[in-house]
């Protein structure tokens, strides 16, 4: 019960904030009228709903009995450990080509788990890169650059 309180409070605040932001943006898109709804009509309705629902959650969380638990901990290292390599992969893909990018991705992503071994990471990286090359480029003929193109900041 305690944990649920805290999560409802946080989620309620999140929805309130997002709803408010969306509502503000929607107003600027032109509401129009019921006879001729503008671009902001439906989004405004949705934003209002979101704000309302967020408010209900916040109120509910505050009025429910129970101490707010520290919760199961917000550990940002794991998300970063996975998403960091993902972002790096995205940046590297066009300039460095798929083979190199997949290699780096797998090596770095393997760092995220608690049982680390160089030999395993390198083997996995090489084999994954090879399989991706075979499946996506040779078999499916997708237009993905395999080798470095030498161009930086190709979005």
């Amino acid at each position, binding site marked *: 019960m305690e944990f649920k309180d805290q999560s409802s409070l946080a989620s309620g605040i999140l929805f309130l904030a997002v709803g408010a932001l*969306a509502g503000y943006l929607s107003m600027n898109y032109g509401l129009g009228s019921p006879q001729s709804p503008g671009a902001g009509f439906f989004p405004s309705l949705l934003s209002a709903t979101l704000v309302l629902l967020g408010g209900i959650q916040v109120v509910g969380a505050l009025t429910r009995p129970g101490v707010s638990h520290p919760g199961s901990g917000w550990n940002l290292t794991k*998300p970063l450990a996975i998403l960091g390599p993902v972002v790096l992969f995205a940046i590297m893909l066009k300039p460095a080509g798929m083979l190199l990018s997949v290699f780096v991705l797998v090596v770095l992503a393997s760092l995220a*788990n608690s049982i680390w071994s160089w030999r395993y990471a390198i083997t996995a990286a090489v084999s994954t890169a090879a399989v991706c090359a075979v499946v996506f480029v040779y078999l499916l003929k997708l237009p993905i650059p395999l080798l470095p193109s030498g161009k930086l900041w190709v979005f």
Partner: protein
Amino acid sequence: MEILNHLAEGYAVAVTLDNLFYAFVGCLLGTLVGVLPGLGPAASIAILLPFTFGLEPTSSLIMLAGIYYGAQYGGSVTAILLNLPGETSAVVTTLDGYQLARQGRGGLALAIAALASFFAGTVATVVLAGFSLPLVEFALKFQSPEYFALMVFGLMGAAAIGTSSFVKTLSMISLGLLIGLAGIDLNSGTPRFTFGSPLLLDGIEFVALAVGLFALAEIIVTLSEGEEGRSGMQRITSLLPRWREIREIFPATVRGSLIGIVTGILPGAGASIASFISYAVEKRVAKNPDDFGKGALAGVAAPEAANNAAAQLAFAPTLALGIPGSGTMALILAALMIHGIQPGPDIIRSNPGMFWGLIVSMWIGNVILLIINLPMLRLWVKALMLPYRFLYPAILAFSLIGVYSVASSTFMIFTAALFGLLGYLFHKLRCEPVPLVLGFVLGPMMEENFRRSLIISGGDFSIFVSHPISLTLLCMSAALVLFVLISGARRRRRVASAEGA
């Protein structure tokens, strides 16, 4: 009987050696590509479409249909084994399917999905053969207010599914709807929620959202909960369902098929919401609703049946009305037109061989899928017996390349990363991603129909209740909401009294 004539005609077309071969190749390729994380039916068809160009129109349509079903089943495979749905309709399968996989019963879940899909496909074929024209006429009765009401019903179905609080689920739906509206508004040309970036003009891509919210978030959550040592499957012996289990899921399968048939005929939202509604119904009629979300067999059988039936039925309005029910259907329509076939109400009369041949070959495709996949189950199961820590880097690589390949855009990978972070956030806040996804998919369509209804009625909101079908759907939605609220209140009272006693 007319059904038999049509089936016979179709049989003659479909059961030639050539067409059987194409159906087989289509199913096989579709499954293999659909199984790749991040590539769903739409991407698979886009990739494999060129293979069909050299063929005759009927044969290429048969092969495309095979690819479509294969990819759909492949999407269900990743939904069950990796918690990564290949397409909207597989999203519901992740709820119980993935839980079954985590309990070491993934093979069973896959088998049930295959069998339920096959059953639904058979029923759908018969229905299509006998009732295509009346069905299409029924579909024509659906106009903007009806579509809007239908989507409201579908969304309430998604809300009924949620295991967390109802308010949170509704919030996720609303948030999904908003996210779905991002991009250029087609009616007014106004860019919405794009924050000035030209990259967002087309809106957010489903694959990027799904990979982020499901695959990436799942990887992060599993690692942060220290479960990377866990092994994929423990029991290979439980691959095929026992007779007892088949009897258990049979009613769910039948219900799912019926729901799929009814919703699939409606162009547009039909196929997407079929699985959501059937899951919500199953949860409502089940003896132990609390099993759902923890690995209930019916929770896999019903939505799989529903989405397969809907997928097959979706061909009827696509061919007969020229209105594609989903992005995938649009691709198939495009393929047809490349071959010079004009979809429209005349197609059944002008090209009966192709139409009935397609319907029969859809059933044959179902058979082929069953034959291909049941033995392949052992393969998937073996592959996933490795501990998670060996698998996730490869899953990561495949998914990201899949995301990239949809539009050759690295921006999509960034999007996926963002949704990965959001997915982790939602997990910590105990909010469920599945309702958000349905809102995302239905957002633009819902707004379109809402707006059109208001324009037609001159700003009069009562149009939604003055149309009988629309009124019925809205009442059903309200009933669903009441059920959820009442059963939630009842459960809380039970828990409170148990604690007090």
